[in-house]
């Protein structure tokens, strides 16, 4: 056996040993369950609405798993709370006058050897008092030639007591209206070509806020403007 063969055999033996060590390590770790995924569907609800929380876990030794759920920020359980999937119900109101709040749902997955894994998912609860803003014009994804000269921006809030509709172009305040309808022309003659985001923020009594945005593309032209 020449020197090269001895070296190759040594390398192979070393690799095999390493592989064994890794396998043994994974067996040690398998005493603790593994959580592959935890979801909340939907992840965003309105008050008193429900969300289904599911945890996908496995035990590498094939041991039976048990589930312990907790809701440190409140809300209620609906139905059975011992399986891998539970139903959580949002509270009927949000404290502190906020328009939305995040609620944590914790899962503890335990095997027969009392080894466990933890995970958390967040559910956002929105107050129904928030206005819903709809931008009627321009349409999201529209291409608008600069030769048009102006773009009509038309939006409305779902609450008629909305007292402010602010318009932002690429995050920069443009102007506002004091009613639940925003309908104004945007002079694009001096704008540069490219993508622009139009955002409308509606505010109503109680500090409830709703927002919507569309992205458009201004297409450059030369020639006469209207």
């Amino acid at each position: 056996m020449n020197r090269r063969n001895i070296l190759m055999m040594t390398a192979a033996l070393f690799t095999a040993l390493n592989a064994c060590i890794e396998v043994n390590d994974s067996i040690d770790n398998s005493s603790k369950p593994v959580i592959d995924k935890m979801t909340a569907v939907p992840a965003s609800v309105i008050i008193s609405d429900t969300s289904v929380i599911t945890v996908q876990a496995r035990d590498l030794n094939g041991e039976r798993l048990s589930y312990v759920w907790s809701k440190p920020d409140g809300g209620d359980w609906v139905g059975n709370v011992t399986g891998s999937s539970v139903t959580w119900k949002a509270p009927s109101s949000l404290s502190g006058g906020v328009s939305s709040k995040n609620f944590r749902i914790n899962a503890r997955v335990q095997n027969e050897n009392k080894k466990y894994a933890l995970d958390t998912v967040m559910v956002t609860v929105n107050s129904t008092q928030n206005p819903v803003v709809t931008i009627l014009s321009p349409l999201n994804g529209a291409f608008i030639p600069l030769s048009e000269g102006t773009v009509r921006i038309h939006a409305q809030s779902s609450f008629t007591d909305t007292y402010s509709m602010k318009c932002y172009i690429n995050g920069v305040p443009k102007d506002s209206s004091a009613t639940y309808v925003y309908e104004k022309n945007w002079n694009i003659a001096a704008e540069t070509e490219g993508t622009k985001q139009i955002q409308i923020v509606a505010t109503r009594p109680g500090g409830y806020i709703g927002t919507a945005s569309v992205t458009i593309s201004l297409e450059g032209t030369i020639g006469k403007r209207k």
Partner: protein
Amino acid sequence: MMKKKLFLSLALILAGSPFYAGCGDIDRSNLLDPENDNAVAGQVAVVENFVHRYTSGDSVNRYIAYSQRALYDLHQDYAEKMIVLEYHLLLTDTSKKDTLATGDNQLRYHNEYNTGAVPRAFPHVFFNGSQIGIQGASSFETARQRYKTILDTMTVRKVKLFGDAKKTFDGNTLRINCKIARYGDKKINDLLIEYIVIENLGNLTRYTVRKILPPESIVEILPGDVYELPEKTVAAAGLKDTAKTDVVIIIKDNITKKILQACMAR
């Protein structure tokens, strides 16, 4: 207008046409054979770009360049499924000249393609007639994507019309011969045939429209027929390089002006 209805066998009718050469030997399952009831041809997309180039300063506005480069790039992908035409027009700002602009181009834009629905502004690109138009460009990528979306839909279509044309230079005269085959089992009425002479003048003037010839009209083509148009002649004077000159034949619906099919004279 001279009209010839050809009742000879297909091989005789099409003798001399490279597309149809040897058709007498082909079987009736060939989808380019007008006598095959299932014959179809791929839809050719005609992309007409109305542009302006400041020849007074010899510069191309970036919006125009985005549009042109996007079409040049797409032409490499679509090849014979796509024909590009560039019409140069003047601006209302007369200080910016474009020596490639012609009165015919102006008439085409204002009388047929943009009759006032939108402001006059360039680039203004039309796809198979005035029905689908895209005005302006914000980048090469955006323009390319927008054009490609339309071309993808357009070029997958099959149509029952097929055009074949030949061009020859005879001294200072350009001669154009064209035949149009009607496929399927229905006749077609009221066609308008346009002849557009283009010249490759180099960078960003690759498909420059140099002459728009008087069109021909066809009352009807019966199913399975091949219609031969009268020879068209035009003075080649004024063309810079006949080797870089092509003729585009556009077959339009004479009522709607929609482009039904097109071909390049070879």
